[in-house]
């Protein structure tokens, strides 16, 4: 048997392990991780060890150590333990006061109290939420060439943080993320949870090639299958895309069975509000809108008098140069050069209100103004293009009957137009036409606005000649035309002609309107988030070699057949839809008979506490992955986890209160000789802080950390939107970026250089475990980066405020804040000298670069 991999915290460590690979059939039924979980007996301990063993975890670990002739290291100092557990659970440093209290606490349960306090802190969720985001490759941009921002995806991040903080049972957490939309339709939190599935990259560059589109779609489905299987099964199901798994009992059918679950799954940034929220929002919008509307009406009223004056003035200005008055309702004269005529007619082409035109009398005169040549009794005859039917008042004979009034008038039967003719009954010399809508002046409608008057002379075989028209008249205006003109007047022109009283009122009304419009605009929009969006499921086929063109056998949605304790069939009973398929998968997943879900999760939690998991390959519990160092412990933890209703906080308590976790981190050559990689846990291995923790604790030490919880992510870049948006690193990000790093935008291919140098998770990848590198660029970053310099300056200011200007006092204060301890006399002297020569800023920056600051011991 070759030695298996060991782990050192900076890079995955080594010993070459050329596996003597078993044949495929060996793995098939006998993969350890697929065996049912049986809560194992806790091992017996030697009497000498019993007192040290606080928890079942200790019994498993100590028994194993004793077998190898080893034991736990002495317990860590209280201050060391508090710093470790605080950083582990919250990602923040304890304060000096917290350290002091803890060290002096004489109560028996001082540890339990501290741990409960930390688990109750909202910063616990920020810390552990980030671990989960690593695993699910949380990204707030689409990736690929266009890499558009996902502006609302932070809601998924907050959902994760809140879930940890509320100690949501892990099975519920999984159910919500796989099928929240089906679990409780209309519940926004559950819909947001499905961000888990859609967090991966999306290629949204258009292409005309159908084949390329099919490949892309298959890649997307692959994303869903992979994130689900590696995160929750801890198995490399993805291999099945092209072939049956070479080592693990996973067939191509299994892979495509899972693909079938997601075959209609798409993603969308959409409203995630509940029905109630939507209704409330609609009411709020309506109320605000009504307020705006009433104020608009008020504004109209305030403008009206001045505007009307201005409109009249404008119309008058237009009228300038026109020689004849506007048409009037009662009486109009159209004089012209004397001409011989046998017929006179009027053609109307526009009327007020576009109504059917009405003429009361049409009078025609020669030189003698007393003799109306058009009168029927003088022998003339009237005719018309049309007459409004069945109306006694408006006959054509009324046109020249010599009687005035509406009841004795003619109305055409055409909207806005009409023509009336007078046959004069002989050749007459004419020079004036007089007409009106209602000669009594009662009716003010149906007025001819555009018209022409023509004459013809039959005896001379002449056609119609226009003798007069509305052309030369001043435009007619009534309220309607004034209104129209008013609408065309700019508000500021109206204000210019206001009286001071009018203006005073106007400004007050306008200001109120702006306020109300602003209120409307400021109504918070309904929340959006990037979530699942289902199309109907598609038929799914096994694709030979993963080639979209090589369709083989059709498969139904199903889970892993190798989990023998459960039925793999996922086809929903009753209605078949994407959400229901996912719900079936979720139910399968969280079934206590599924041995993978709890094993994989407790191992992840263990890993984040100790630096290495009981299985060092957290995303691979398959044959090629690592074997558990403490299989019984893993199973005990998994069983206990389920027994404790999948409570994550209980799991943390179990671990961090164990003697194993509470032991020291000192090197021990005897133990190292037997177990160099510390797989038996004879000590806690010192670990470097993660990128986020480095940034957060620097801000904490400088006194500038903004501990606000949740909300939109902050940006360290300028976003230049476009077909292919650009992300430009900000030279000097402002205070709004001095929040915890978990709230930093996670962009594909764009990291903060400082975070990247310290191995932050790449948004492109599922990162089940951070690597920890040591590089020169890292050193340059932490010494010279503008952010570090800036915060070192704040740190120095904080020290000066607290300790005054004596370098000795400053040194003490700086050590307390950053390293949570007093400097030794020697340190104090050397550091004070350094401060004297190079300034306090220099010392502060150096302390932020020390191993003591950057490591958990």
């Amino acid at each position: 048997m070759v030695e298996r991999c060991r782990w050192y915290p900076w890079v995955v460590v080594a010993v070459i392990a050329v596996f003597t690979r078993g044949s495929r059939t060996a793995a098939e039924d006998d993969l350890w991780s697929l065996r049912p979980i049986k809560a194992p007996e806790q091992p017996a301990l030697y009497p000498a060890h019993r007192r040290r063993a606080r928890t079942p975890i200790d019994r498993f670990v100590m028994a194993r150590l004793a077998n190898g002739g080893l034991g736990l290291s002495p317990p860590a100092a209280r201050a060391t333990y508090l710093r470790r557990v605080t950083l582990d659970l919250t990602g923040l440093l304890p304060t000096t006061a917290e350290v002091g209290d803890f060290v002096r606490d004489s109560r028996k349960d001082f540890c339990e109290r501290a741990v409960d306090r930390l688990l109750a802190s909202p910063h616990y969720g920020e810390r552990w939420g980030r671990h989960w985001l690593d695993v699910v490759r949380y990204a707030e941009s689409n990736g690929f060439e266009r890499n558009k921002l996902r502006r609302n995806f932070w809601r998924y991040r907050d959902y994760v943080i809140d879930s940890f903080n509320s100690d949501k049972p892990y099975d519920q957490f999984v159910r919500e993320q796989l099928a929240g939309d089906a679990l409780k339709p209309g519940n926004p939190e559950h819909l947001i949870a499905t961000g888990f599935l859609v967090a991966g990259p999306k290629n949204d560059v258009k292409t005309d090639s159908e084949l390329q589109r099919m490949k892309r779609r298959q890649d997307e489905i692959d994303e869903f299958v992979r994130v689900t299987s590696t995160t929750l099964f801890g198995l490399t199901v993805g291999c099945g895309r092209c072939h049956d798994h070479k080592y693990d009992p996973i067939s191509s059918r299994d892979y495509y069975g899972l693909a079938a679950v997601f075959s209609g799954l798409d993603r969308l940034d959409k409203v995630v509000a509940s029905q109630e929220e939507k209704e409330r929002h609609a009411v709020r919008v309506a109320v605000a809108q009504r307020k705006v509307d009433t104020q608009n009406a008020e504004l109209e009223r305030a403008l009206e008098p001045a505007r009307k004056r201005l409109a009249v003035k404008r119309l008058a200005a237009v009228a300038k140069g026109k020689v004849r008055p506007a048409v009037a309702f009662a009486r109009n004269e159209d004089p012209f050069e004397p001409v011989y005529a046998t017929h006179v007619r009027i053609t109307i082409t526009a009327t007020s209100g576009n109504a059917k035109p009405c003429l009361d009398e049409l009078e025609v005169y020669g030189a003698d103004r007393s003799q109306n040549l058009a009168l029927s009794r003088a022998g003339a005859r009237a005719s018309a293009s049309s007459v409004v039917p069945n109306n006694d008042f408006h006959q054509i004979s009324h046109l020249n009957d010599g009687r005035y009034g509406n009841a004795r008038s003619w109305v055409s039967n055409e909207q806005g137009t009409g023509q009336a003719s007078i046959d004069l009954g002989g050749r007459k010399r004419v020079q004036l036409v007089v007409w009106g809508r209602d000669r009594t002046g009662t009716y003010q409608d149906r007025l001819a606005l555009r018209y022409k008057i023509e004459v013809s002379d039959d005896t001379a075989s002449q056609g119609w000649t226009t003798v007069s028209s509305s052309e030369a008249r001043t435009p007619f205006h009534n309220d309607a035309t004034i209104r129209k003109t008013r609408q065309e007047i700019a508000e500021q022109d109206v204000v210019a002609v206001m009286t001071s009283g009018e203006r005073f009122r106007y400004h007050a009304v306008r200001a109120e309107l702006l306020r109300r419009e602003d209120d409307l605009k400021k109504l918070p929009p309904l929340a959006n988030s990037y979530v699942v969006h289902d199309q109907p499921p598609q038929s799914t086929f096994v694709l030979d070699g993963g080639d979209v063109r090589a369709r083989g056998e059709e498969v139904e949605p199903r889970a892993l057949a190798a989990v023998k304790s459960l039925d793999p069939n996922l086809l929903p009973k009753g209605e078949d839809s994407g959400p229901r398929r996912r719900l079936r998968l979720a139910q399968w997943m969280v079934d206590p008979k599924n041995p993978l879900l709890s094993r994989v999760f407790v191992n992840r939690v263990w890993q984040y506490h100790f630096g290495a998991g009981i299985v060092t390959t957290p995303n691979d519990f398959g044959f090629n992955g690592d074997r558990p160092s403490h299989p019984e412990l893993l199973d005990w933890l998994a069983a206990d986890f389920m027994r404790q209703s999948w409570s994550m906080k209980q799991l943390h308590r179990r671990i961090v209160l164990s003697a194993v976790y509470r032991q020291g981190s000192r090197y021990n050559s005897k133990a190292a000789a037997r177990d160099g990689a510390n797989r038996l846990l004879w000590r806690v291995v010192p670990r470097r802080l993660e990128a986020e923790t480095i940034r957060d604790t620097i801000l904490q030490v400088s006194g500038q950390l903004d501990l606000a919880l949740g909300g939109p992510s902050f940006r360290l870049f300028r976003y230049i939107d476009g077909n292919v948006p650009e992300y430009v690193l900000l030279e000097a990000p402002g205070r709004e970026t001095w929040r915890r790093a978990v709230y930093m935008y996670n962009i594909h291919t764009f990291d903060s250089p400082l975070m990247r140098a310290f191995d932050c998770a790449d948004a492109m990848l599922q990162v089940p475990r951070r690597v920890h590198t040591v590089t020169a660029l890292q050193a340059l970053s932490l010494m010279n980066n503008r952010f570090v310099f800036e915060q070192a300056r704040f740190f120095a200011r904080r020290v000066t405020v607290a300790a005054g200007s004596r370098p000795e006092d400053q040194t003490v204060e700086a050590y307390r804040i950053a390293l949570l301890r007093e400097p030794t006399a020697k340190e104090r002297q050397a550091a004070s000298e350094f401060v004297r020569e190079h300034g306090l800023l220099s010392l502060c920056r150096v302390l932020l670069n020390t191993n003591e600051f950057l490591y958990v011991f």
Partner: protein
Amino acid sequence: MTWYRSRTNCTGIRRFVDRREFLQTMGGGLGSIALVDMARARSQRTPASGLHHPAQAKRVLFLFMSAGVSQVDTFDYKPDLTKYAGKRITGKGNVQDLLFREEGNLMPSVFKFKQYGQSGKWVSELFPQLSRHVDKLTFIHSMVADANNHAPAQWQMSTGFVRSGNPAVGSWITYALGSETSNLPAFVVMKETDTPAGQAAAWGPGFLPSTFQGTVFQSDSDPILDLSPPATYDRASQRASFEFLRKLNEEHLRTRPKNGELAARVAAYELAARMQLAAPEVTDLGGESEATHRLYGLDRSDKRGAKFSRMCLLGRRLIERGVRFVTLYCGGSTSTLNSWDGHRELAKNHRHMAPICDQPVAALLTDLESRGLLDDTLVVWTTEFGRTPTSEGQTDGRDHNIAGFTIWMAGGGIRPGTSYGSTDELGFKAVDNPVRIADLHATILHLLGIDAESLTYYHNGLDRKLTGADGGQVIRGIV
């Protein structure tokens, strides 16, 4: 997208690093993480160097023409295109499946071609200076790619895979071979304009430790981000701070013996201090002769061209100082005339882009040769895909073409004056000896003494390789 496809099996060597090797990499700069493992793991005879076989190249200059150079307008002479001008491509399968946008009619090159050198290589008028070096070059005319849009295609050319998140060729090589300098990053990237479509994912470490990422080098005085403290900070204090920090860390280390990682951090700060001096020295071109400046074209009035000239000269200076892998981008994002992406007015585009690189690349070949560096430096001139011999729809531009395109290599063990593979009479599809990108990568590794099949890194349940599960074939015809 086939890395998990496994024709061979997925076996590999579990790759981890122990503390001692790690320190070697950090401090000495000569060791490398992968190499020691590879040597130990291999059962066959291993050369003393730890390499799989003797290396012909020690370092790589990777010249990346961003956004797709048209092969039929540069190095893949297709006189028949004139004959078929205005016709459709027929008899070559579903053309649309290969294209990115709209299919158009065949469009002959407007550029004049002439034969050059002993090899009689046909080169278009776009490269008057480079054409004088054809006898040093090995052309591959039968490259094929898998993705027909820029970012995935650039990722494939740079990392072997059409999805982001995989280590760059330069990362794999520095992981395998380490660096020959500890004063400079082992893998350096320079850009002459904005960032190409593949962005930082094209030189990222992927799942390898971030130590192996490409470091972006600015061509001005402060070439590396955070190389120096703010200008207002006193230099003496900077030196004293490094010194004081070392004291504190060493004191701390004394109370915690046998902690290699903490010790490595002490070494890392020493290295950082050295880098602060070495990096600005590289970009200071004062020591280069007037003739060299002129040779590369630093004196050109065209600012953009002069910048690329400077980059090429810096590229030579970097590899001279032991940097393992240098990527120089010619062209950036795909906005008009910013890259080689000639969807419209192809002639105008290539007439704009070619002069940027013609003189300095020619100069680089001359300079490397005269310094004896060309023998063990592999120069790769590449692009992510070619362009169609047809117009794109009704335009006078060309669409992306993944079915066949041209790249060339020079130096480091490459057979000079050769042309390998060919496209059909239209310059559309590779017909003779098609070369996949995995084959190209396997060949590059081979020239460096590395067997692509043995260079692995365990990630997420798999022993990952640059050349994927299908592997790559070393192109025997050119090495």
